[in-house]
């Protein structure tokens, strides 16, 4: 194992299909038209000296090191900005070029510190490399001239203050900016613009005074910088350097793995020194992220070493007791005895489990296997229940698969993007950057969201925003369909060829009814009919139209209906089955797609096959050597209800904080309190653990092997870079628990689990660790028909056969505003925090978001006497909590918004029991509330906090004190 050094080709890859042949240094080279001479040379293994060029951003031509000679052309053109032409004869080295490059390097070094040995970039500095490459041996200018290097004039007694010198900016928690080392190559500025799309950086001053400046000479932390790390990655010197590198030193080996945060599934190189992570660097060959990252994956991995992480198994008889640290064996046998005891007392179906969308496919598979084969029932569910279960339902009904139709590369061919109920800039930042790049190239964007999200307005991007009232998605999407049908914008050729025509006609007649027109529905939705009509026209006629949606679609009482309505829209306009189009759910968690694929739902075995199917069950029974129960088990809400009734008494929860993330917290508390054995398997004592009897410490994604499946169905390897700090990888923990319960699952390595998955799952038959190592990743279906996976689905026809149009009648939620609760609360996320925050709250990311705040429109705030930063009481029919207000017109009047990253916020005390009619996905996105000024935390928050503190006591720790 060694450090993976990715080749930097200097300029981006050309997509041209036309090939051009030229001669570089005597070698004939054939490359796509539009390729730079620099890249063509690198293709042939000739590295032309360069500093300002890097293949993540467009050529800039500023450093003047990459000059070459071209026969028949005057001068010494820069090879980065000069495209190849047929028959060119290029020389990359000559006396003239040598002299020129040496001259340029001499200038660079005349304004650069000579502290290489103690520099943070020592060993990883392109300036150092280039000085070596061009043979720079002296700097004849001396170091007494104008410079940015010395705070005071050198060589003079009590030297004068150097006004050009700037101190180091250490404001960002993860990296530093040292202007004295800056060579003004603008790579950071361009990465911020071209890769990330934030435009936080610029060059201030001109000529010799030019310096990189965040915003208007602000600090990095104080600027618009979102800390994605693209600038740090782009920097060729020590100017922008990870603090971890400064502290630890250069890494010596690296391992490619997959980020454990959101569903984008960014590939990273974990750069290591021994078993210590030095830094995580986005991997350019990662097909989901193409070398980009966000603040979470790039920097927020410190939670794996957080002091609150639990490394020893713990048990207790009652939740009022302090925890007792025990051996793994004792923990397993304690848990097994309790679970088996419950089954004896209350029946086989009285226990169950919840798989984790953050664990690997293999681990998820094992948990559902344990439940189905070991527990002997189908009481398995997963957190997808509370997020994308309507996606599974809606897309399988209409298209025949429960997943997004595209790969992320597809966005590069999109002409019109529609975002519904999602804020990728916060929740799927790397995808947002890729989309914004396409938008800056001219693609159009329509945002359907109650809130003016970061996607609506960002540098050089202006979306058509339809700010709808929460809960009216179906009405809006059906109105879009109304316009498409009544204005004759349907792609009839596509529909006749690919879809069921009579179902289409029925649907078309339905949506064409005047009551579905934008004008008629405006009173419900609050959307300007003119804008809605324009949006429909743009989507239907603007070229490749792609819909991206998130939990703002699914987490509603009509979540499944909206998913179906979206699918209808895509079919009616022919926006399915090729690159650039499609219906794309943005999955929230790293492996929520995988956990669904792996049979985490009570009614489905891996591969979405119903448990009642005899043939399917036979297959599993034969391999698992057990008899399976053909009856679907309990869903999460059913488990809670059953617990309160007294018929469901034990639960194994892997990597999921159901208490914080499920709706109606008080109901969940009641259910957990009623159970006799709650087993929590997690990194931290999460909120659920406050009601647990067994705590099995988990392992982080850095400590185990496995695979994650991202939102584009891409299966990617997670690779172990260090030993599990808790002693066991999560898959081994589940095996241990199973064994204690009398069910043996003898695997030696997760690859063997994947082999079993492949053997049992038709869409996975071609998947193996060997293939993943070879190809980097594959997108399912991966089988005989698609041995290298399937980037875009439904190309020649829908998986289910004919695409199915389904009528989508808007039914208002029962959760309505009224005199007592006149406002609608909707929820979302913020960039720096992830989900319930268990990981990100335990990193430096808290500097950006230390608490959840309630966004209120100035009009509503004024009426209630609420000022910015005031504590407000937030009350719904379900409960009340307090948090601080942020006054903003990002939300419309009548709508309030908060995030749910902090447990103190107790946002889910407010949310109700209403849920999706088809899948029980909770209606998180609509709660009728009232707000009023408050003095501070509510009684509930205080009681909750006291209970949590009490419950988290650990006995040996107390003894030690």
């Amino acid at each position, binding site marked *: 194992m060694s450090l993976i050094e990715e080749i930097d080709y200097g300029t981006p890859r050309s997509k041209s299909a036309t090939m051009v042949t030229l001669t570089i240094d005597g070698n004939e080279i054939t490359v796509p038209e539009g390729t730079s001479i620099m890249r063509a040379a690198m293709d042939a293994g000739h590295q032309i000296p360069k500093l300002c060029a890097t293949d993540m951003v467009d050529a800039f031509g*500023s450093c*003047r090191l990459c000059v070459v000679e071209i026969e028949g052309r005057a001068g010494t053109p820069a090879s980065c*900005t000069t495209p190849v032409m047929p028959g060119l004869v290029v020389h990359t080295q000559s006396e003239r070029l040598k002299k020129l490059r040496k*001259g340029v390097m001499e*200038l660079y070094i005349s304004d650069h510190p000579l502290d290489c040995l103690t520099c943070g970039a020592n060993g990883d500095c392109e300036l150092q490399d280039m000085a070596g490459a061009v043979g720079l041996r002296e700097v004849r200018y001396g170091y007494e001239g104008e410079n940015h290097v010395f705070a005071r004039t050198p060589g003079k007694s009590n030297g004068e203050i150097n006004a050009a010198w700037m101190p180091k900016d250490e404001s960002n928690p993860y990296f530093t900016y040292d202007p004295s080392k800056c060579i003004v190559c603008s790579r950071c500025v361009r990465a911020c613009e071209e890769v990330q799309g934030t435009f936080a950086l*610029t060059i201030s001053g001109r*000529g*010799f005074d030019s310096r990189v400046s965040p915003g208007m000479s602000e600090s990095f932390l104080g600027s618009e910088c979102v800390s994605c790390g693209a600038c740090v990655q782009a920097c060729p010197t020590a100017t922008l350097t990870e603090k971890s590198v400064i502290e630890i030193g250069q890494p010596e080996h690296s391992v490619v793995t997959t980020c454990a945060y959101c569903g984008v599934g960014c590939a990273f190189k974990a750069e290591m020194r021994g078993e210590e992570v030095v830094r995580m660097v986005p991997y350019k060959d990662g097909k989901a992220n193409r070398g980009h990252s966000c603040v979470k994956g790039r920097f927020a991995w410190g939670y794996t070493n957080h002091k609150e992480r639990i490394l020893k198994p713990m048990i207790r008889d009652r939740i009022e007791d302090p925890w007792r640290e025990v051996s793994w064996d004792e923990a397993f046998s304690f848990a097994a005895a309790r679970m088996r005891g419950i089954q004896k007392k209350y029946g086989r179906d009285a226990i169950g489990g919840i798989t984790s969308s953050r664990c690997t496919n293999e681990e998820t598979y094992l948990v559902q296997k344990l439940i189905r084969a070991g527990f002997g029932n189908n009481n398995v569910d997963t957190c997808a229940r509370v997020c994308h279960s309507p996606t599974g339902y809606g897309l399988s009904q209409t298209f025949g698969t429960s997943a997004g139709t595209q790969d992320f590369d597809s966005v590069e061919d999109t002409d019109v993007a529609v975002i519904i109920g999602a804020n990728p800039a916060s929740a799927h930042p790397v995808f947002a950057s890729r989309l914004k790049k396409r938008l800056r190239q001219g693609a159009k964007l329509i945002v359907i969201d109650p809130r003016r999200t970061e996607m609506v307005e960002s540098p050089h991007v202006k979306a058509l925003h339809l700010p709808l009232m929460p809960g009216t998605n179906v009405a809006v999407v059906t109105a879009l369909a109304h316009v498409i049908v009544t204005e004759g914008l349907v792609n009839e050729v596509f529909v006749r060829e690919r879809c069921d025509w009579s179902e289409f006609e029925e649907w078309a007649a339905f949506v064409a009814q005047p009551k579905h027109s934008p004008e008629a529905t405006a009173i419900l939705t609050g959307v300007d009919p003119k804008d809605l009509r324009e949006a429909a026209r743009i989507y239907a006629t603007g070229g490749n139209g792609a819909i991206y949606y998130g939990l703002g679609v699914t987490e509603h009482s009509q979540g499944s209906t909206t998913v179906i309505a979206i699918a209808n829209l895509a079919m009616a306009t022919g926006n399915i089955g090729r690159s650039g189009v499609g219906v794309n759910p943005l999955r929230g968690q790293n492996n929520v797609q995988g956990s669904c694929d792996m049979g985490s739902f009570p009614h489905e075995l891996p591969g979405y096959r119903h448990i009642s199917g005899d043939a399917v069950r036979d297959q599993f029974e034969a391999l698992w050597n057990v008899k399976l129960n053909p009856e679907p088990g309990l869903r999460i809400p059913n488990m809670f209800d059953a617990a309160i009734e007294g018929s469901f008494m034990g639960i194994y929860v892997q990597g999921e904080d159901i208490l914080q993330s499920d709706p109606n917290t008080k109901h969940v508390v009641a259910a957990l309190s009623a159970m006799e054995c709650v087993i929590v398997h997690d990194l931290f004592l999460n909120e659920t653990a406050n009601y647990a009897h067994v705590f099995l410490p988990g392992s982080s994604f850095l400590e185990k092997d496995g695979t994650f499946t991202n939102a584009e169905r891409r299966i990617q390897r997670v690779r172990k870079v260090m030993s599990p700090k808790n002693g066991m990888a999560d898959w081994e923990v589940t095996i241990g628990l199973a064994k204690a319960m009398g069910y043996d699952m003898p695997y030696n390595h997760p690859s063997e689990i994947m082999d079993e998955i492949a053997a049992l799952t038709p869409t996975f038959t071609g998947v193996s660790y060997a293939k993943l190592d070879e190809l980097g990743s594959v997108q399912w279906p991966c089988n005989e028909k698609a041995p290298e996976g399937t980037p875009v689905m439904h190309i020649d026809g829908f998986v289910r056969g004919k695409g199915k149009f389904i009528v989508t009648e808007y039914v208002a939620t029962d959760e309505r505003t009224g005199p007592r609760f006149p406002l609608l609360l909707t929820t979302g996320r913020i960039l720096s925090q992830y989900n319930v925050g268990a990981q990100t709250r335990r990193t430096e990311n808290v500097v950006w978001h230390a608490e959840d705040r309630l966004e209120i429109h100035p009009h509503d705030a004024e009426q209630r006497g609420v000022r910015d930063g005031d504590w407000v009481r937030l009350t719904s029919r379900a409960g009340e909590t307090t948090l601080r207000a942020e006054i903003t017109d990002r939300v419309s009047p009548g709508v309030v918004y908060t995030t749910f990253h902090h447990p103190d916020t107790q946002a889910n005390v407010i949310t109700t029991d209403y849920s999706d009619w088809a899948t029980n996905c909770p209606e998180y996105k609509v709660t009728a509330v009232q707000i009023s000024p408050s003095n501070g935390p509510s009684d509930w928050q205080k009681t909750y906090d006291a209970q949590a503190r009490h419950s988290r006591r650990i006995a040996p720790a107390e003894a030690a004190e």
Partner: protein
Amino acid sequence: MSMRVFVSRDAGAIAVGADEVAIALQRAAAKRGVAIEIVRTGSRGLYWLEPLVEIATPQGRIAFGPVTEADVPSLLDALASNTPHLLRLGATDEIPWLKRQTRLTFARCGVIDPRSLDDYRAHGGYKGLERALSLGSDAILNAVTASGLRGRGGAGFPTGIKWKTVAQAKADRKFIVCNADEGDSGTFADRMIMEGDPFLVIEGMTIAGITVGATKGYIYTRSEYPHAVEAMKAAIVAARCGGYLGSKIGGSTYDFDLEVRVGAGAYVCGEETSLLESLEGRRGIVRAKPPLPAHHGLFGKPTAINNILSLAAIPFILAEGAKAYADYGMGRSRGTMPIQLAGNLRYGGLFETAFGVTLGELVDDIGGGTFTGRPVRAVQVGGPLGAYFPRALFDTPFDYEAFAARDGLIGHGGIVVFDDSVDMRTQARFAMEFCAIESCGKCTPCRIGSTRGVETIEKIIRGERVSENLALVEDLCNTMKFGSLCALGGFTPYPVLSALRHFREDFVPTPTTLQAAE
């Protein structure tokens, strides 16, 4: 009938009192009960004669100059009594300095009222456009190519080829950009034409627009040129009212409109790509080429960006035919060049003439030697980035290739003369300092090199390790010349190296000081 009097409103004339003279004339005439009509024209370009006052007579215009306020009564007396006057220069057209010029581009400058579309048309204005409209794009391209017109900004690129590239580019929008960001020391032709004949610029740009298929044009000029900005804006409004800008110009099927944009004072924004950046509202930073502006110019669209003098030459070429223009000149430099004579010179001003006149003729004969009367020592041709020529090279003809062959450039046609009191070390240092101040900061040779250049030449001036530092300056000039991204850094070596080569005695200390220094 009232007496028609012409007084320039050119900024150069105003600077020496033309406004005051015009007011004095008006007042004095009123006092005397003489009806006069004062027409504020552009300048004839004979700046040592400004304020120049011309009187219309049946025999043509009679010139007086330089006229001060105090001269007004006597001047009116002389006119009234038809008696001679000390300042009387005779018929304007017969003034030798003007008579020996070939004014194709500046034919109307100083003659017509720059605010009057009618006056412009009465003097042959818009004949070029009329012809262009009847010819169509391909024939215009042929005419412009056949005229041999080359970029008057200094690069000398054939205008016809540039336009053809833009005409052939496929795009939903194209632009014409007029580079009127005249920043060279000793140049003023752009300003003069904008102040004196703004409709000519409009006509040239309009022809460019219909040729390449652009519907929008921008004139990018300097904030230091308020009079020119005002004149251009007024002319645009007048042209629009007259149907020469806007939709269906001149009754044709073509649409074309114009806007004036004023820069913020950066010399480098006269470089075409940073000019485009500035027009787009960004920092004036040079873009790498390719892509050429003709393919990927303003707002990423195909753009014909030409110097204002190139565009101003177009109406003549169309109106009188390519041959009429190409008949002037020498070698590959066809037509005329508006040469600007400045610096330490007796007769400074605008001298438009066919290519081929020698530097010596321009300086000694036309310019009349130095203003101070001391011997001419050095002549900088082509702005602050042009080479210094010694008397030994005065036989160089004014021609792109001839100047290049002697490591010089004609640039924008500016000539600045120095007498024998000049210290060429200071001039070399100034060239580097100018580059350091004006560098956009993008490319390394210019950004750091110019500052190091100043420092190293200062060391030479101080006598520190002179021969080593001279070698270093030469190396640095090599790096800047071949390594810089644009002409700012790339041409700064011209004045430095020419000073070193032709005036070496200023740099190398005399033997005695050499000993002292070591």
